[in-house]
């Protein structure tokens, strides 16, 4: 018995030592919004470069910002651009700057689980703001019904779902609401919600939505699509009801692409344009300006170059929109600047 036990231990220890050889692991954490495409990318990139592993954990944009600032992960990911204070905090703590690299374009969609409603509902900005403020409490409220003539909306209470942790997806949603509603004051990743249940990650909100009748939640497009969850069209700034898809999200980014600031931090919610989907957003990888570890630096740069070019081929299959060409070109130059 003793012999067997010591043999097992020896094998395990040896195994772990041997394996620790030449695999480079780059750890990242952050947004759940782009998690489907990131996990796909890192998987594909690993087959191309088997000696590097990108271990990405989706814990929410807030977590990505925090952990990359602490230095416990090598890079972060966020749908919310870091504020000047946060960037300064990073500089103070780590002695170098933090760079934002847009990766894809995505959209927050208002998904719902209403018994008896199988089609696409139309939501006005006032309806969405009212629901999330707790002012509109029933599905058959005139604010919702007026945009959905002919749809049989039940008189049930709306179950509002939101994120329980600091979320870039929340930031996009609240950023939009604060632009279209004068009553909606809070904007950020982690707000004091007037109503609703909290769930963890886009995954958690979608999961809760599926099992909770009469619920409404904001999730990234792919989560609704992959899980056969109904999502609605939103009235954009030009007055048209638009459903989120590749065309409408790309249209929202069209204007911003030309005037993209050098640090890539920009908001494209409530974008002008007849075809634009109003709750669209870029999402960013947060990469430190300077890397101590040369191996990690090279791996990250290699990945970023690949992501901007070949990686973009995989995004549309997962319902994310590609980076506009002008943005991609600017990014390539920015990757060069990583030390």
């Amino acid at each position, binding site marked *: 018995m003793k012999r067997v036990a010591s043999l097992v*231990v020896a094998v*395990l220890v040896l195994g*772990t*030592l041997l*394996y*620790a*050889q030449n*695999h480079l*692991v780059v*750890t990242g*954490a952050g947004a759940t919004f782009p*998690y*489907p495409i990131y*996990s*796909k990318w*890192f*998987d594909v990139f*690993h087959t191309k470069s088997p000696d590097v*592993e990108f*271990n*990405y*954990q989706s814990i929410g944009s807030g977590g990505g910002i925090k952990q990359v600032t*602490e*230095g*416990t*992960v090598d890079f972060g990911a966020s749908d919310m651009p870091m504020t000047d204070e946060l960037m300064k905090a990073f500089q103070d703590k780590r002695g170098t700057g933090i760079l934002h690299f847009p990766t894809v374009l995505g959209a927050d969609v208002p998904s719902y689980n209403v018994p008896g409603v199988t089609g696409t509902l139309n939501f006005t900005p006032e309806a969405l703001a009212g629901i999330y403020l707790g002012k509109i409490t029933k599905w058959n409220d005139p604010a919702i019904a007026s945009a959905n003539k002919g749809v049989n909306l039940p008189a049930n209470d709306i179950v509002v779902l939101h994120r329980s942790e600091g979320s870039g997806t929340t930031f996009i949603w609240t950023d939009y609401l604060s632009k279209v509603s004068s009553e909606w004051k809070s904007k950020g990743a982690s707000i004091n919600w007037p109503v609703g249940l909290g*769930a*963890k*990650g886009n*995954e*958690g909100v*979608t*999961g*809760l*939505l*599926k099992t909770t009748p009469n619920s409404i939640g904001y999730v990234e497009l*792919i*989560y609704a699509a*992959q*899980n056969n*969850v109904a999502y609605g069209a939103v009235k954009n700034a030009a007055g048209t009801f638009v459903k989120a898809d590749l065309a409408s999200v790309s249209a929202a980014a069209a204007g911003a692409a030309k005037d993209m600031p050098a640090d890539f931090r920009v908001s494209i919610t409530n974008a002008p344009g007849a075809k634009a989907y109003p709750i669209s957003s870029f999402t960013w990888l947060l990469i430190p300006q300077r890397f101590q570890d040369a191996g990690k630096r090279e791996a990250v740069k290699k990945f970023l170059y690949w992501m901007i070019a070949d990686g973009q081929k995989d995004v549309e299959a*997962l319902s994310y929109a590609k980076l506009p060409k002008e943005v991609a070109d600017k990014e390539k130059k920015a990757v060069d600047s990583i030390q």
Partner: protein
Amino acid sequence: MSARLRWRKFVSNFMLGLTGVCALVSVGVLFLILGYLLYNGGTSVNWDFFTKLPKPVGETGGGMANAIMGSAKLLLAASLIGVPIGFFGGIYLSEFSGSFTASIVRYAADLLNGVPSIVIGIFAYSVVVLPFKHFSTLAGAFALGIMMIPITLRSTEEFLKAVPRNLREGSMALGASKWKTITSVVVPAAYRGILTSILLALARVAGETAPLLFTAFGNRYWSNGWTQPTSSLPVMIFNYAVSPYEDWHRQAWAAGLVLLGLILIINIVARTILSRGIAVPRS
């Protein structure tokens, strides 16, 4: 028989029957859990589950091979931290210490035992993860190891104390030093109990999730060595269960079945060892 007596007898039988129902319900919960896990996860525990890595989000298939390995490594390292401290500390309490020191150590162990596992998690984050700037298997093992200490300490002390005095005295009378007595007479006499408590401590921390959230973090790949983040069964169950993907639910049930099966087996083995008696082994 008077009416009053008949009533009292009826009440007696009724209430006692009710207690039987309570017992049935309580035990029934165990079988409910096992039943659900078997039903929902039984078919998903296949070869893929044990050998494949997780697939990208939204794709079906894949497995939890890295989580199983991660849990194994975490438990191994946690034992290396928790067992020696508990074992040797228990020897000290039982064989060497005065009652004052003993009560302080015991009190500290009880205190540690009562600390909620999430608090152990944030403690491990601030003393291991932050200074080294790494989520790692070691950090996770540190958190789990701390949780093992009180169980192994108290049990080792109790089982050593239960060894009859005359065994010790006999050994000393033959000229053996105290330490020799402890190692060749006292500990072997109590080894069943001590082994049991180590196994039980292991079973206890095998299922812990909260302390791993901020220490071992998570890993979609194999975790090399001891200083990288690692996946683990409990954390995978947590992440997959609250997700919307049916395939992930299926895998969560399977992982739950494997995890619970492992824990129950350890428990049953431990208790069987103990029930065979704490007699001095011959060999």
